[in-house]
Each structure stands twice: as structure tokens, then as C-alpha cells.
């Protein structure tokens, strides 16, 4: 087993991980900073897939307070208000950093100032963007800077376990699998950032990149940490439905399509959103996703089981100009977005929930920090479009600052508890001693269907209970399946087994939290509890693993800055 020491270790190379690396290096120039990623640095993950843009309160007439209110109302009042405040307060600084320090160039308006576009759910057009491919611009510039900053890279390294020291009171090391050789690597670090980006890829239709498998959340659960709001899974209404045999299915067609006037049609070609919500197709993602699933379940869907998106009434040439990237992507699948109908379906997009953390990135485990989609609390019950990339870049940078400061007071390198290390290694190696890679595809399919059908857009008590049981059953079957005894070097079957193990664990946390929430808030909707409940008595779910089982507690929300009005608006 190879060993290495690094002062600061960052798991993940998205917006959070890369910003953390740069801030940590700036704050502690003599420290060794290492970024570990499951694939290639800057290429994996979802920050670079961001199409929409970056919400920031910069324009005249806008204010941080207004952005805060939009975020908290959008989050159905479940947000941790200190985290949400930190997000909106720091975003302006971060955007200046992106432009003037890192060299991102965001679109300009005719006057040469930043162009801001409208994005659903906000009371001000504050979304800064680069065309419809903002993420690539951000990650491209971040990665270039990281490549030239003396930051170490561990590419094709998969984190297999977070290892505390013998006392169990602080994080000592991370156990990696070097995917290229299949060997273990024990990395001792004085500060570790969890920034693997969540990613609800356990649903049949999902948008995140295929290498995401909730690794960070699973690592945290196994290390005894508490996750909050896990029942809050954001579904994006317009995922491409290109058939079951292709990975293209599920990829997101940007919100701006609806924002600029696109229509959603049933299989028979009729609009239906006008019946459901006065805002029609411009309502928030959760409202639209629910309406769409109801139409599909009522038998009014397309032959493939989805619905149609129509843009042609806006003028095909205009659509082609404004949404160039998307028109091309659809064309590659044989769809004409500009002039024809595209089949769409709600698709699992983002996990609002995650590891409980403080605004500076620290968690309940000393030495472990978290930022980005792996963390929970910033967005409460529903994330505003454009707040996601703001979240990861803001809190990634803040965590980097904190980790650099942490080094000044933190003790030196610790050794991991030998028993936990051995147990982690054995657990990771076990599938290589069992036959059966052929069964993995079937397990993945059953997991996807179970989550989609029972823990999806529309939920109810019996369905959730069945999901809890079904997931436990899948976990048991996985424990009896293996990846075959092949060469561990770059063994994708082995990693698929490990992916499934993490996804099932995350799924159990999601299902248990959904069962515990007996109302309908934000992205979580239950047919047996359709009311939102008393906003003033809002509670969030907190899930952790205790003695092998999921335990969910409910914690009251502290309205530290804004209280909800007594009369909640319908539909929120």
C-alpha cells in the first residue's frame, strides 16, 4: 500500500474543490495542497455542465437582502439562514474573483456591463452567465490556474474511506484506490475537504455526470456524520428522453427554454401547465415536475412515456441563436429543438441535502470540511436555478480559507486507527473475491426504477416504506454479488460495485428522510401529506447511520434573519 502525506487534501475537482485548492494555497503558500479526483481533474463532475448561470446581487436595484429572501422563499423556509446569508453575501466577491483574477468572461450587455438574465423563482434578473455554457468557462479557468499553481493532483483516485485516528475524535487520513493500478493509497492529511458533488444518479432519469455516485455522502455516513434534508431531491422538468439504450437520456435542457416562452405539451399536443399554475411553464421546477408526472401517470404522455417540449412558435432561427449548444445536442440525438418537438421527462438533478456544516466549511468531525453539493442546508427544500454554482464556488473558497487557517493551529499528521483501516480495505476488496459482474447491471436497473417509482417526484407513505424495504434488499443482494476476480487495474466492474454500494446507502438516507417528513415542502411532495404544514414550525430532517440502521431526527429551523409570513402562498 502506498502512503503519502499532504497538509491539505481535497476530494473532488469541481467548483468547490478547485476554489478550495486555490484559496488554501493562497492562504498557506508553503503547505502541500493535493486535489484527488475519481477521473481527470477539471473534466469530471457537474460544475462544468452548468448551463444556466450564476446568481449574484450586483445590479442596481438588486440587493443581497433581496437575493437572500428569494433563496429562503425558494427553499420553502427550510434553509439554514446563516448559510444562505453567507452564500448571497459572498457571491459578489466570488464573481469579481472569477472575472478579474481567474479570467472568466461573462456575457456583456450592449452597454458593456455584465449581462444578467432572468431565471425562474427570483424577483430580480440577477443571473450572470456565459452563453448557455457558463460551467465550462468557470471550470476551464479554474483548472488552468490549478495546473499552474503547484497544487498536487491525484487523478483516477477514488476515495474509499474517511479514517479517523484511534481516538475517533479527528480525521487522520483518507484511504484511496488508485484506479490505474488497483492499489490502495493511504493519504494522511491535516485537513480534508469533502467536495465530491453528491449527484442523484441513482434515479432512472438523472442529469449528473455518470461518474458521480454520492461517494462523499456515503463516506460521511459511514464516518458517523449527520446529513440533513436528504429527502430534498430536485427534479429538473426538462430532461431529454432519448430512449433507454442511450446515456444521453436524462441530460438537462436548460431552464431558459421555458423562461423564454417554451411550451410543454401532452402526447396529444396540448398545453397543460396553464391548468395547474398561473405562471404556466415559468413556475418553479418542483411545481412543473409534479404537474408533468401527473400528466404522464394519467396516460397523457408520449409513446416513450414523457411529454413534448415545443420551441418552434418562438421562431426557429431565434431559438437556434440563443440556445446554440442545446440545439446541437438535440440534433445529435435526432431531435429538432428549434423547429420540432423534443421528448422530455423530469430528471433527478441535484441533492439539496447533505453533510451538516458551518459557514466556514467545518463539520462535526475535526479536520473534515465540506463544500458544494455534498453539503446540506444552504438551499433548504429547493434550490434556485443559478444558486448551485454560486454555492460550490462560494463555500469552496471559504473552506479553502478556513483550512489554511486551520493548519496554523492543527497538530501534525495523525495515524489512522489500524482497525478501521483494515476494515475499510477488506470491505473495498471483498467484491473482487466474489463472482458476478454480470449482475451489476440488473442491480443498477432495479435501484434506478425503485427510486424513480417510489422516491421520485410524487411520493406517498406506502411507496416510501416499500422503497426502504427494497433498498435494504438491494443492499443484501449487492453484498452477495461481486465484480469477478479480474485484474484490479482500472477495473470498471469493481468501481461499479463500489458505486452501487454508495448509491444504495445514499438512497436509504433519502428514503428514510422522506418517510420522516410528513408534509409536502419544496421538492418533497407526498400524496398522503399534501399540505405544507405550519411554516413557522418548520423542521428539517437529520439522518445518520447508527448500528447499521438509518436514524432520522427532526430539528426545528432557526429563523435567524427572516421569519415566514403567517399566510403561505399556495403552491410553494
Amino acid at each position, binding site marked *: 500500500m502506498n502512503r503519502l502525506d499532504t497538509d491539505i487534501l481535497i476530494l473532488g475537482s469541481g467548483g468547490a474543490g478547485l476554489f478550495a485548492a486555490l484559496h488554501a494555497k493562497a492562504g498557506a503558500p508553503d503547505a502541500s495542497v493535493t486535489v484527488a479526483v475519481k477521473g481527470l481533474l477539471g473534466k469530471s463532475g457537474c460544475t462544468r455542465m452548468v448551463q444556466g448561470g450564476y446568481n449574484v446581487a450586483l445590479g442596481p436595484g438588486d440587493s443581497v437582502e433581496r437575493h437572500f429572501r428569494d433563496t429562503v422563499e425558494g427553499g420553502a423556509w427550510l434553509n439554514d439562514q446563516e448559510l444562505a446569508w453567507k452564500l448571497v453575501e459572498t457571491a459578489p466577491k466570488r464573481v469579481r474573483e472569477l472575472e478579474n483574477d481567474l479570467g472568466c468572461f461573462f456575457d456583456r*450587455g450592449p452597454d458593456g456591463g455584465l449581462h444578467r438574465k432572468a431565471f425562474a423563482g427570483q424577483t430580480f434578473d440577477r443571473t450572470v452567465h456565459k452563453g448557455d*455554457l457558463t460551467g465550462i468557462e468557470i471550470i476551464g479557468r479554474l483548472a488552468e490556474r490549478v495546473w*499552474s499553481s503547484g497544487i498536487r493532483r491525484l487523478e483516477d483516485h477514488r476515495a474509499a474511506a474517511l479514517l479517523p485516528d484511534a481516538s475517533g475524535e479527528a480525521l487522520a487520513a483518507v484511504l484511496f484506490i488508485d484506479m490505474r493500478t488497483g492499489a490502495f493509497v493511504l493519504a494522511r492529511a491535516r485537513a480534508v475537504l469533502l467536495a465530491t458533488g453528491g449527484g442523484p444518479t441513482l434515479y432512472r432519469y438523472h442529469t449528473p455526470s455518470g461518474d458521480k455516485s454520492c461517494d462523499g455522502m456515503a463516506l460521511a455516513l459511514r464516518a458517523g456524520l449527520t446529513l440533513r434534508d436528504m429527502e430534498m431531491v430536485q427534479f429538473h422538468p426538462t430532461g431529454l428522453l432519448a430512449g433507454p439504450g442511450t446515456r444521453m437520456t436524462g441530460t438537462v435542457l436548460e431552464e431558459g427554454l421555458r423562461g423564454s416562452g417554451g411550451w410543454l405539451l401532452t402526447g396529444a399536443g396540448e398545453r397543460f401547465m396553464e391548468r395547474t399554475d398561473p405562471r404556466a411553464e415559468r413556475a418553479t421546477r418542483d411545481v412543473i415536475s409534479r404537474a408533468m408526472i401527473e400528466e404522464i401517470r394519467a396516460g397523457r404522455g408520449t409513446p416513450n412515456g414523457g411529454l413534448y417540449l415545443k420551441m418552434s412558435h418562438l421562431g426557429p432561427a431565434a431559438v437556434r441563436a440563443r440556445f446554440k449548444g442545446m440545439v446541437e445536442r438535440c440534433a445529435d440525438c435526432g431531435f429538432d429543438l428549434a423547429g420540432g418537438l423534443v421528448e422530455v421527462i423530469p430528471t433527478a438533478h441535484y441533492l439539496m441535502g447533505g453533510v451538516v456544516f458551518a459557514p466556514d466549511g467545518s463539520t462535526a468531525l475535526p479536520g473534515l470540511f465540506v463544500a458544494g453539493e455534498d453539503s446540506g442546508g444552504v438551499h433548504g427544500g429547493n434550490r434556485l436555478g443559478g444558486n448551485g454554482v454560486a454555492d460550490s464556488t462560494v463555500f469552496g473558497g471559504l473552506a479553502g480559507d478556513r483550512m489554511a487557517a486551520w493548519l496554523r493551529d492543527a497538530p501534525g499528521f495523525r495515524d489512522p486507527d489500524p482497525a478501521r483501516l483494515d476494515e475499510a480495505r477488506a470491505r473495498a476488496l471483498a467484491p473482487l473475491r466474489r463472482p458476478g459482474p454480470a449482475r451489476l447491471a440488473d442491480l443498477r436497473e432495479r435501484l434506478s426504477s425503485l427510486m424513480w417509482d417510489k422516491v421520485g417526484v410524487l411520493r406517498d407513505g406506502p411507496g416510501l416504506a416499500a422503497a426502504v424495504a427494497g433498498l435494504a434488499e438491494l443492499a443484501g443482494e449487492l453484498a452477495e454479488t461481486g465484480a469477478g476476480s479480474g485484474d484490479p487495474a482500472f477495473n470498471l466492474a469493481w468501481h461499479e460495485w463500489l458505486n452501487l454500494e454508495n448509491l444504495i446507502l445514499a438512497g436509504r438516507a433519502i428514503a428514510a428522510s422522506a418517510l420522516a417528513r410528513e408534509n409536502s415542502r419544496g421538492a418533497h411532495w407526498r400524496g398522503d401529506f399534501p399540505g405544507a404544514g405550519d411554516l413557522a414550525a418548520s423542521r428539517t430532517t437529520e439522518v445518520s447511520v447508527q448500528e447499521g440502521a438509518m436514524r432520522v431526527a427532526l430539528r426545528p429551523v432557526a429563523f435567524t434573519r427572516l421569519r415566514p409570513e403567517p399566510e403561505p402562498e399556495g403552491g410553494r
Partner: protein
Amino acid sequence: MIVTVVIRRGGERGRAERVEFRVPVSGDPTVLDLVSTIQRDHAPDLGYRFSCRVGMCGSCAMLVQGRPRWTCRTRVSLVVRRGRIDLAPLPRLPVVKDLAVDMAPFFETWTSAGGVFRPRDRSAQEFARVTPGDPRRREADAAIECIGCAVCTSACAMAAADPGYAGPAALNRVWTLVNDERDADGAARLAEAAGPGGAFSCRSHGACARHCPKGLDPRRSAAGLRRAAALAALRGRL
């Protein structure tokens, strides 16, 4: 339809074997879907890469019928010839396994060619005022959407012949920086671009522009660098 897929397998450049798989294909899948099917059903130990699977990361790039392409956006029906598809990893990069390569050399070349923004004023509070019609900005915008997938550099005959050549991707990025008014050091960049292995090694053969899946034109960017360098030389600023 049954497609015969021939994959160059192996860990290192020198030692490789070509393995055939006969795969039933239905619907209209992409080459990435095909490779996934082979790994799942025929060869669990097949090594390949993908991430976004929608043409934003470039992880899935490989040689398809001898030409570098993104497999996630290339339909099988478009490239299959007489029922066969030939797959191999991108050339001139260390092979990790089978179709997966290590892209570190590509990014190291990019970085050492100067493909990194150097801020004029990193703590500026204002955003640079740049109108959309600004000519330099339009030049930069025409080339800025590169995702660093290495398809162009894999197709470039000069990059194949000369390991010291910066390559189309790096030069394309340097051109965007030369046109970025917020970037410090324009003169130093031109000097680098005019250096050995720089824009003057480009012979405008054009494979880069023909292969770029985003329709970018690194050939044009390299020409821009030559033009800018020549003008700077005439003005005594190189």
C-alpha cells in the same frame, strides 16, 4: 443489426492487441453507448472513460475509425462502415488501459505554452467594460468555447511529427488571451507564441478545424498569432 467492434486493447503503446466484439445494436445509440454495452455484457475489464456523456467534458474522446471524436455525441449509424467500427485510444498520450488515456501531458503543454490567464489587477472591484461588438472580444469569443478535449491535437499532423509543438488547442487558447484586454502581458505572450514550437510551426494544414467537435478553428487562431507577432515585430514590440 450486429456491429463488429474492433478495440485496440492493452496497457502500453507498444504492446497492444486488437480484439473483436460482435454486438447487437438497436435504436440509435452513440459509440459511447456501444462501448458501455461491451464493457457491461462482454468484457467487464474493458477500460474506457466517460463523465458528462453530453459533449461538455471531452473525457470520452478516442479514435473512431481512425479519427478522433467524442464518442458520446457520435452515433453508431453515422460512423459504421460495412458493419465494422474500429476504436483506439487517443494517440501520443500515455495509455492507462485500453481506451482510457492519461491527459496530463496535454494539459502540461497547454500550461507551459502560456494557456493561463494572468490578471492585470486581480483585486479589481469593477468589471471590465467590453461592448459585444468589440473586435478583439469577438476574436476571443470565436475561440473561447474550447473544452480541452484534445481532439484537435490528436488530429494534427504537425503535433504527430514534432513532440515540441504546442499544438492547436494550446495556441487557440493563447490567441484568446492575446485578445483579452484584462490579461496582462500581451507582449510576453506573443513572444512565447512566436517561440520554438509555437504558432510559426503551424502549417495551416487544417485537420484541427476539420475535427473540432465544437466547430472551432485553431488554424485561424494560430494564423492570428502569426499576424499579431509579425505586426509587433514590425513595430519593434516583439
